[in-house]
């Protein structure tokens, strides 16, 4: 038997390597980052991104795409900074309700055979509108327990790292190890065969969307915990960031090929790439462009590592 790295392991090895390289570069540019506080500053804003990325990954694992991730997280942030603080019960109820709405979207998309891109595009307007209604101007305040949670200082490793690892483990267990995860990915891989085995594909899709809703809600709550207050546009960027994170982490748009650990690493990489650039001090005109360049470099790195891996395999 030929010895080969399993596809899953490869899917992971490459993002992990690019993260390591980038981290080394950051440490070299800014040795101060190599500390408990430094690591926390580098990574704490990656936590909500990682959660949103996992949510996007769940949707992508059933061959769909969610263009409303950013506005949804913004909306959740607004709810967290208002209702969840002032009337925790109502806040919880709302958050529970929107998770149900997410699951419902999965059902509708499946039953009516709708393109998820359009439905989520429409929903992005709806979430944005609700957020603007809730907070016409920025404001609100994070519930104390959320703030406390996000600014916790655990021993050994900073909160940002602990949280990222926790998210990766939980998501890995749910998506890669549990029966439900297998079913969801099965729908992404070959819907017909899942149907032929007697499963309810609607149920699987609803579960995927519902789970995505849960992770996205967590992203919004975590974000408010970090920023202390919310506004209606706070997380618009998360739509593209989450998609980029999944791809960086080795996921694919169709076919149910995803990797939760990779997705978390992808989110960390994206965050780190931004920091790397600020440490480089580029002319203001080209700072925006440099963000594009770094994305390209990281992905090109992926290609390079992929090539090396292949050569290794051939030998």
């Amino acid at each position, binding site marked *: 038997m030929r010895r080969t790295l399993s596809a899953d392991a490869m899917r992971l090895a490459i993002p992990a390597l690019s993260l390591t390289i980038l981290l080394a570069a950051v440490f070299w540019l800014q040795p101060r980052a190599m500390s408990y506080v430094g690591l926390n500053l580098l990574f704490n*804003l990656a936590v909500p991104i990682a959660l949103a990325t996992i949510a996007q990954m769940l949707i992508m694992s059933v061959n769909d795409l969610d263009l409303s991730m950013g506005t949804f997280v913004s909306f959740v942030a607004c709810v967290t900074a208002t209702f969840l603080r002032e009337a925790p019960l109502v806040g919880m109820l709302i958050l529970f309700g929107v998770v149900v709405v997410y699951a419902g979207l999965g059902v509708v998309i499946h039953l009516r055979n709708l393109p998820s891109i359009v439905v989520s595009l429409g929903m992005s307007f709806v979430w944005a509108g609700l957020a603007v209604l809730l907070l016409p101007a920025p404001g609100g305040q994070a519930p104390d327990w959320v703030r406390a949670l996000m600014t916790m200082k655990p021993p050994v490793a900073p909160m940002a790292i602990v949280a990222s690892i926790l998210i990766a483990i939980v998501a890995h267990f749910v998506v890669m190890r549990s029966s439900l995860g297998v079913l969801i990915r099965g729908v992404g891989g070959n819907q017909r065969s899942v149907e032929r085995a007697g499963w309810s594909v609607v149920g699987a899709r609803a579960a995927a969307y519902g789970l995505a809703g849960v992770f996205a809600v967590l992203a919004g709550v975590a974000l408010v915990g970090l920023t202390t207050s919310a506004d209606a*546009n*706070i997380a618009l*960027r998360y739509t593209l960031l989450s998609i980029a994170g999944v791809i960086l982490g080795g996921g694919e748009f169709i076919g149910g090929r995803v990797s939760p650990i990779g997705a978390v690493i992808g989110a960390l990489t994206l965050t780190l790439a931004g920091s790397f650039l600020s440490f480089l001090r580029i002319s*203001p005109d080209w700072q925006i462009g440099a963000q594009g360049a770094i994305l390209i470099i990281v992905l090109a790195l992926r290609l390079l590592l992929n090539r090396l891996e292949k050569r290794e395999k051939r030998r």
Partner: protein
Amino acid sequence: DTSGKKIALSNNYAGNSWRQAMLTSWEKVTGEAVKAGVVAAADAFTTAENQATEQAAQIQNMILQGYDAIVLNAASPTALNGAVKEACDAGITVVSFDGIVTEPCAWRIAVDFKEMGRSQVEYLSKKLPNGGNLLEIRGLAGVFVDDEISAGIHEGVKQFPQFKIVGSVHGDWAQDVAQKAVAGVLPSLPEVIGVVTQGGDGYGAAQAIAAAKRPMPVIVMGNREDELKWWKEQKDANGYETMSVSIAPGVSTLAFWVAQQILDGKEVKKDLVVPFLRIDQDNLEQNLANTQAGGVANVEYTQADAIKVIESAK
């Protein structure tokens, strides 16, 4: 003595002429200051997208980089509070301007946006004492500045009840968006005698109204060169009268000097106010001449100006 100190500018957006003018002024004024040895460095940083989260990360990086002061034009008055608090805790002076932050440990150089909105209606009440219908062009929904100016305008309308706002559209502070939104509502609006704006959208509104072949109402301008030029053309052709008001992009340089003064150990009040820059019928030509083609009417500040502002706040 601040010659060893490093100051950073944290900017959340570079996508319009106002922000570009702001960055240019910063570069010009701080460049000279660095050359003169007043401070060791004054670097400008812009995020790729106009997002509070990204700016928060940027501020955190500045903490790591060891800056002594951060001058900040914030994407959100509240969403950066977490990062600003972290900076303060690390002993960094934070001075916010234009887009200010509410975190108490930071300094604020604010413009009274509410007053800016109210004064537009006040001006119209003098020009059009009989009142009439107004069209309001707003900025980006959910953003602090938009909410403030709009609140001021509505306050003004309450104060001068002869005016009535018959239409309100969001122009996102972008001229093409404003043009599109105005063109969309115009067909269903009654006669409009005045347009109240937030800056950067007056010319778009004028074009949409001209395209619909309606009588030109009094459009309050926002200090952009193209707006002033259009106003001048109209003025020469038919004596068109209006006013123009906005915050000067050079306020970034004021914030720079304030930060420098704080680092120098001066006692500075947490809340400072700068006047907005207003252009009227009589000083139009003069202002137009001083404005770069395609740019924004601007004022840059010196160290002396900053000291004056600080003193007067005491």
